[in-house]
């Protein structure tokens, strides 16, 4: 009961927050909601399968660009629908061609994908339409953007929680441990990976589409910034990518930290990003939540011995 009631109460409080906050505070909340969505949806696929994807910004940027191109042609809900559809189609295409890759090859491919999409759009804009930048003029207030992102984040967490209780969630964990065993136990590897990857990428694309009006001016170099992909990975890993609340616990403090650093140390803050990346991988490879659990077990050696 409390596992549902507590998050719901938190959601209501967060939904009411814009009424009490300044524009700056609201901006922070938007950033947080965005990164919680990105980290959680990234973990939806990568957290259990351990296929580290650096393609986050490929989908995020695609979402933003879809809005930039269509925002004057279609009503807003249809623009979002189109973004989701394009994201899903791109994910299916990429998934079908890459999910046979394993380990570092997958990582490199996904990194290359973000660059490829960016270059393709740049080429298209320069040679076909003859303009590089685009403007997004939508009649949407920051609070409305926030509510949409909050809803998307809640939806992602709900979807993850639901998947954890379904065969799909179990299959993803098995794939993360040993694909050969997974296949010999009757799991259709390609289908499971494709479904999870597409779900994850569609949510990421929607997040990019919803957040895009904040930019006003959009060009490929802005929306396909690889830092977004790296930040998403490190946030999810910090909290614990294979746990429901892990990505959220990583995304909130890291977003605030980087916000602070980029304001106060605008030139040197990428150094902190790099240092933190290394620290997370070395100190907490399984995330804060798993680290806390280990610490608790160490403090109560008696219960552990009793168990063993």
């Amino acid at each position, binding site marked *: 009961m409390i596992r549902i009631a507590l998050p719901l109460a938190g959601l209501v409080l967060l939904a009411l927050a814009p009424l009490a906050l300044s524009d700056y505070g609201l901006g922070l909340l938007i950033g947080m909601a965005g990164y919680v969505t990105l980290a959680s949806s990234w973990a939806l696929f990568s957290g259990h399968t351990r296929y580290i994807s650096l393609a986050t910004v490929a989908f995020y940027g695609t979402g933003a660009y879809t809005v930039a191109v269509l925002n004057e042609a279609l009503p807003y809900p249809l623009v979002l629908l189109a973004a989701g559809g394009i994201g899903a189609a791109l994910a299916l295409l990429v998934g079908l061609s890459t999910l046979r890759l394993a380990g570092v090859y997958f990582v490199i491919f996904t990194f290359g994908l973000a660059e490829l999409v960016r270059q393709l759009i740049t080429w298209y804009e320069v040679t076909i339409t003859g303009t590089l930048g685009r403007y997004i003029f939508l009649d949407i207030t920051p609070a409305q953007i926030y509510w949409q992102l909050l809803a998307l984040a809640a939806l992602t967490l709900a979807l993850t929680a639901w998947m954890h209780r379904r*065969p799909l969630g179990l299959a993803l964990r*098995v794939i*993360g*441990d*040993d694909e*050969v*065993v997974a296949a010999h*136990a*009757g799991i259709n*590897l390609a289908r499971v990976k494709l479904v999870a990857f597409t779900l994850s990428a569609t949510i990421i694309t929607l997040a990019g589409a919803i957040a895009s009006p904040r930019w006003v001016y959009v060009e490929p170099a802005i929306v396909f910034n690889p830092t977004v992909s790296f930040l998403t990975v490190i946030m999810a890993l910090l909290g614990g990518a294979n746990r429901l609340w892990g990505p959220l616990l990583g995304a909130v403090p890291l977003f605030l930290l980087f916000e602070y650093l980029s304001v106060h140390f605008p030139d040197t803050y990428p150094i902190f990003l790099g240092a933190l990346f290394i620290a997370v991988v070395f100190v907490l490879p399984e995330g804060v939540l798993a680290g806390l659990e280990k610490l608790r077990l160490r403090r109560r050696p008696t219960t552990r011995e009793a168990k063993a």
Partner: protein
Amino acid sequence: MTFLTIDKAVKQFGGLRAVDGVSLSLEAGEVLGLLGPNGSGKTTLLNLISGALPATSGRIALNGTVLTGRRPDQIARAGVARTFQLVRILPSLTLMENVMIPAVFGHRAHWGAAAETVARDALEAVGLGARAQGIAGDLLYLDQKRLELARALAAEPELLLLDEWLAGLNPTELQEGIELIRSLAGRGLGIIMVEHIMEAVRALCPRSAVMNSGRLIADGPTGDVLSDPAVIAAYLGEVEDA
């Protein structure tokens, strides 16, 4: 209709024919020992049956369903389960979860309470029932082997492939292991076991087949096969005339 038919199965790795035109059949409920020196193609043949490797040519069918050309997950759902020569457990999952997987995704496809019952029965059958909630990565070697067998059982297979499942056990564990497999044979599933421990083969397999350099060189009652001069030559090398 035969239970399992292997018809001229071939697996070619570059210039090497690891399995070279093997034909073999198995009746339901039969336990077959698959013997042969190291590198003779036994594990490769198991890999062809379970779909871990695609066959270069030939045809393998279970209960009339053709297995060759299908993916391992499809073959698993057709009723084939296996253990691996080097134990493969899922270290980050609990024992219960390890064993539930084939119950959920295997050819009976249970979910919820039904899957848990199947998994619990399988864990009980190998003597791990009390540790269902433990993490698989914490298990000792013998228990990992037991867990792997429980996982194969939870698939409720019709054909069970054991790849040196008894290897590496001490004499006491070996007796336990033999009893365990004997109890499975009593359930009526077909078993093919690749095994080097002759004591176990004699105890468990009324029939044996022997491979050498990818070819089947003997197939018959275990006692006859083991005294076949061709088999002895394969194991010990050609005997020179004295």
